[in-house]
C-alpha cells in the first residue's frame, strides 16, 4: 500500500454540489470520491494505491487531470486496486462530469 498526495493551486473551476462516489474497489479498478472543500482555490488529491512504485505515472495522470479541469476548492480521494492510467483518468472525468452535471441540474 502506498499513499500519494497532490495539491494543485489556483484552479479556475469551483466545485459545488453533493459529494460524488464513482467506481468500485476491485482488481484493476478504483473508487473516486470527489467533494467540494474550502481549500483557497486549490484541488487536493489523495491516492491510496495497492500498486507500489508508480509515483511518476500518478504524478503525470494527476497533472493532466488538472490541465483538463482546473478544479478549485475540490477534494478528491482515490482508493486504487491497480487500475491502469486509462481507468484512473476515465473515473476522474466521470466523477467530475457527474458532479458538474448535478450542479447544472440543481440550478435549472
Amino acid at each position, binding site marked *: 500500500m502506498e499513499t500519494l498526495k497532490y495539491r494543485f493551486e489556483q484552479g479556475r473551476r469551483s466545485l459545488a454540489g453533493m459529494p460524488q462516489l464513482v467506481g468500485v474497489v476491485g482488481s484493476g479498478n478504483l473508487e473516486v470520491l470527489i467533494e467540494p472543500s474550502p481549500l483557497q482555490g486549490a484541488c487536493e488529491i489523495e491516492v491510496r494505491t495497492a500498486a507500489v512504485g508508480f509515483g511518476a505515472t500518478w504524478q503525470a*495522470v494527476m497533472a493532466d487531470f488538472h490541465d483538463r479541469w482546473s478544479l478549485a476548492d475540490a477534494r478528491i480521494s482515490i482508493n486504487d486496486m491497480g487500475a*491502469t492510467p486509462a481507468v484512473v483518468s*476515465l473515473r476522474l472525468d*466521470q466523477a467530475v462530469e457527474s458532479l458538474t452535471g448535478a450542479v447544472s441540474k440543481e440550478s435549472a
Partner: protein
Amino acid sequence: MTQSESQAGLRWTTQQRNRSDRLARVQAALGGALDGKIVQASHIVELFNAVLEPGDRVCLEGNNQKQADFLGKALTRVDTTRVHDLHMLLSVLSLPEHLDVFDKGIASKLDFSFSGPQAGRLAKLAQSGKLNIGAIHTYLELFSRYFIDLTPRVSLVAAEMADREGNLYTGANTEDTPAIAEATAFKSGIVIAQVNRVVDKLPRVDIPGDWVGYVVQSPTPYYIEPLFTRDPALISEIQVLMAMMAIKGIYAEYEIERLNHGIGFDTAAIELLLPTYAADLGLKGKIARHWALNPHPALIPAIEAGFVESVHSFGSELGMEKYISARPDVFFVGPDGSMRSNRAFCQAAGHYACDMFIGSTLQIDLQGNSSTATLGRIAGFGGAPNMGADARGRRHPSKAWLKAGEQARAGRDTIPRGQKLVVQMVETFREHMAPAFVEKLDAWQLAEQANMALPPVMIYGDDVTHILTEEGIANLLLCRTVEEREQAIRGVAGYTPVGMGRDKRMVENLRDRGIIKRPEDLGIDKRMATRDLLAAKNMKGLVRASGGLYDPPKRFRNW
C-alpha cells in the same frame, strides 16, 4: 505406341504411378480392414505406414478452429524405420501431437502459419535442431504455396461425415478443407479424411469423393475450439469508451460498410454497441453492413437489430449452428440448412472486398509497426497480415476507400488511388502494466534468437492508417513527415514511456489539425461509457437476443 512414346509417357507420369504404388501397398497391407475407401480406425497406423514415404510433404489439417486430431495422434505412432523426415504443412500448430512428430523423428521440416498454444515449445524444438522451419506464412500465403511449390503428397483432413464413395460433408466448419484437398488431389496426391460419421446419404457434398483416397471414422468427433466467443461480462468500460470512439471517429467518419473485425474484446465491444450507440447516432444502414467474419456470438444483437446484411465466414463457431441456419439471409447457408465456411475465400474477401480491418495487437513501435511476437515464442501470423494490409491489387471504388486514399495523398503530386483502412485498437497498457507502445518491438530480438530473415511484423506501419487508444485516435493518413507520424503515435500512447516522451506542443498542433482526436474532440460524453451501453451484458443476454437459438459451449454458461 513406339518405344520413345511409352518412355515419354513414363517420364511425365511419375507422380501418378507413385500414387498407384501407394494405393497398392495399402491394399496389400490392410486387406480386409479396407472396405472400398473406408478404413477401420484400428488400422489407421498401418495405413500411414503403407501410404507414407520418407520425405513426403504431409499436410495435416488443423487451424484455430477444427482439428484432424485423430489422424494427428495416429501420425505420432508410425514406424520410424519406414516413415521419417516428413515435411509437415500446417495452418495452425495447436495440439501437442503437432510437435510430437518432430520430437520422435517422424518429421523434420515445417511450414506453417500460426502456432499460438504451442509457440513456446516450437521455439525450443527449433533451437534444438529437431525441427527446421521453412517459413512462417499467412493462411492465404500458405494455401497459395500448396499450388506452387509446397504441394502436399498426402493430406490428412477432417470432415463431419462421409458416404461410402468418399464424398465428404464438411458443413459449417469447411474452413481449409477445399484448398488442401484440391491441391493434393489434382497433383496425384492422396487425401485421407477422418470423419465423425460414415452415413449412406450426406446432407450435401462439400468435397467430391473422387478427390478423396481414404476415409476413417474416428472414435471421437474432431476437436473444435470456440475461439471467437467473447463473454460480454468481461468487457470493460475503457473498451466501451474505445468502441464509442471507433464508431464515431472512424466507422461514421468514413461510412464503412464492409469490414473485418479481430477476435478481441475491443472489437466485441464495438459489435455490442452497434444496436445501441451507433443506432442512436442514426448509423443503421450506413455502416457495418457486410462482413468477412466468423459467426461471432457478440454480433447477434446487431444482426437482430437489422444492422448486418451479410456475413461470410472463415470457419464456424460452436453453438452458433442453429442461429446461423435460421438466418440464411445473413450467413452463407446451403440448401441443406447448414452454413459453409471457406477460409481461403474469406481471407481473399477480407483482403479485397472489405474497406476496413480493425483489431488488437500487443506492441506498436514509433513507425506504427505492429507485432504480436513475444520473446521465447514463435507464434506466427494467421490471417491478420492479409486482413490488415492495403490491397494493392484492388481497383473497385467505395466511399471509405476513396476518402482514405485522398487523405493519404492530399497535397502530393501523385495519381489518385484508394486505400484500405487498417486500424489498430489497443489500450496503452496491457495487463500487468505492460506498455503496448515501445521504442523497439520484441520482434527484433525474437528474429535474432530464432535466426529469422526478418523481424516477424504482423502489420507494417505503412499499412496502418489509424491507431485508437483510450486517449484518442491518431490518423496516420494525414501525417506528412516521419516526425509527425512519430508524434501522432506518441500523442495517443498515454502514460507509457513512449507517450510520456511526446513533444507536447507538436501533439497539440496535430490535434488542432485533426490528426489526433480526443474523445471530447469527437463529442463523446464519457459518462455514457458504461457497460449499460452494451446490447448484451453477458452470455445469457446473447442467448436471449438470439431468441434461444444460440447454444453456448458449457464453459461459457455461467448462469
